[in-house]
């Protein structure tokens, strides 16, 4: 259970609430760790700052990453995730609110796994999870309990 965390990196509280609601509503019972900016996301992932001492061997199952973030923006967070051996293989799904082609291209170039429209469009999210081979890991939790 504990090691099947979903990390949600989102600065907009409205979007956070709506995203968590969408996931819960569809019976995704994984723990959802919410962080409010890029720096906090990095601190969490690498056990630094506020999260110093966190067991970094436990990493989220999937990261939902907004691009426009205070302090450290989404693209840079993605770059740092891909540059560190501990997090290199983590699936990262970009949360997007725009159709700006440039955002998609740079995200894919930096190693994003997928795209989901904000606030989480549940069908898109399921499709992304399916492509990443994590569909069962997330959906069947409720049944296992």
């Amino acid at each position, binding site marked *: 259970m504990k090691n099947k965390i979903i990390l949600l990196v989102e600065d*907009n509280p*409205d*979007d956070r609430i*709506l995203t968590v*609601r969408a996931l819960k*509503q569809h019976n995704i019972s994984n723990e959802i760790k919410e962080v409010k900016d890029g720096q906090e996301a990095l601190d969490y992932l690498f056990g630094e700052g506020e999260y110093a001492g966190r067991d970094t061997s436990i990493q989220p199952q999937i990261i939902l990453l907004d691009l*426009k973030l205070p302090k450290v923006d989404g693209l840079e967070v993605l770059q740092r995730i891909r540059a560190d051996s501990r997090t290199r293989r983590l699936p990262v799904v970009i949360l997007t*609110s*725009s*159709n*700006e082609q440039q955002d998609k291209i740079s995200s894919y170039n930096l190693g994003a796994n997928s795209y989901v429209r*904000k*606030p989480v469009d549940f069908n898109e999210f399921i499709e992304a999870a399916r492509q990443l081979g994590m569909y069962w890991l997330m959906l069947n939790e409720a049944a296992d309990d």
Partner: protein
Amino acid sequence: MKNWLYRSFFRQVSVLLLVFSVISISAYAIHNYLELKRQWRDAIRSQASDATRLVALTVADDLRYGKLFELWSKLRRVQEQEDQGTLYRFREITVIDSLGNTIGSTDPKEHPLMQPYVSSAWNSMETMSGIAPVEFGGEKIGSVAALFDITSFREFLWIHLRDFAIYLSALTLTSVAFGLILARWITRPLSDIQGTLPAMGSGTIALPALTRRQDEYGTLARAIESADKRILEDAKQIRVQNDTLEETVRRRTVELSASNKELEAFSYSVSHDLRAPLRAIDGFSQALIEDYGSKLDETGAFYLKRIRGGAQKMGSLIDDLLQLSRVTRLEIKHAEVDLSAIAEKIMRGFQNESPYRNASIKIEPGISATGDAGLMQIMLQNLLNNAWKYTSKKDHAIIEFGSLKQDGEEIHFIRDNGAGFDMRYASKLFGAFQRLHTEDEFPGTGIGLATVQRIINRHGGRIWAEGAVGEGSCFYFVLPHIAA
């Protein structure tokens, strides 16, 4: 030869002078010679005629009285007499009586003379003949016929002609030489001036010998010197202006790219930040409906529906505005684009979305144009979307994409039998936020055709529309052919 001649003005003048001198002097020589010959010939002829008459007088007595020996010896004397100072000489003299018998002759063969004799005849340049009647007491008793030797006259003429030829040759040579000097004198400054022309604009041209002159060459040389300096000045000024211009262009480009960047940042910000509150409005309204729907009455549910409708409308306005701004700032990459294939794909999408609509779609295959593939897609998407939307209330919709040739131009068109529009408002069709239908009739943002027009304009093309209310509309567009 022709090239050799036309390469130099001096050569042309020289050749012209030479030809002119030779022709004019030769003409004068020939005329002079013929005139001389005529005058002398007349003089000789009259002297010879006189001499023949004199002989006739001398022998008249002898002929009358039959003193034939006297007559013969007189003839011999006349013939052998060494003529002094005359250009003719008796060669043969014959006297005949009135019956035509030869009475006496210096010619040993006693040949009969030519008959009838004219008073004097010019036979050749060697001989001349003369004839005179012999009269006695007013009665013609015979004739004297004489043949004159005029070879000395011929010699005289030849000598004269030779002297004349020498004199004329000298004259020709002198005039040609003078002409050549004159031509050189005229053309020399020209070649001097011509030699300086490659340096025109360097400011170094100096023609001191020529500028001192007061004639046309002086004027020309002074004009060239001042033109040279002026061109140098102008070139300097142009270089300065060019530098300024380049600097201006560079600054403007920097400004433009800065403002483009700003615009991009603005668009990005709009697409993210403006949408976030909308998402909250829409998302929480939906959450309300889903989670608390049972606690709301019909009016409450209706209001929530209106809130969501408004939020979604604003979302599509933002999307369309962004598209319009993207269409404006995107760099155009020209390529050959298959418009028919794009239209086909778009229409298939529409039909999949509403499979129960009764619509005939006619797309002419193979229509292509030069343009940016992405922008062409946006343009056709907007136009076909309009056709699809405005025919939605028809029992049987007809949408056609085709092209026609007019005045050598390929005009593409998208025609539908939908709601159409009043031609009076045709000018408002392409303005942003301009709509000819209410939201209730046909939903829309009023940005689609503005986007289409901007795409066409950016490709240097034209777009216009025809329509009638209730009958449908037709949008025509022309894209200029640009080598990709």
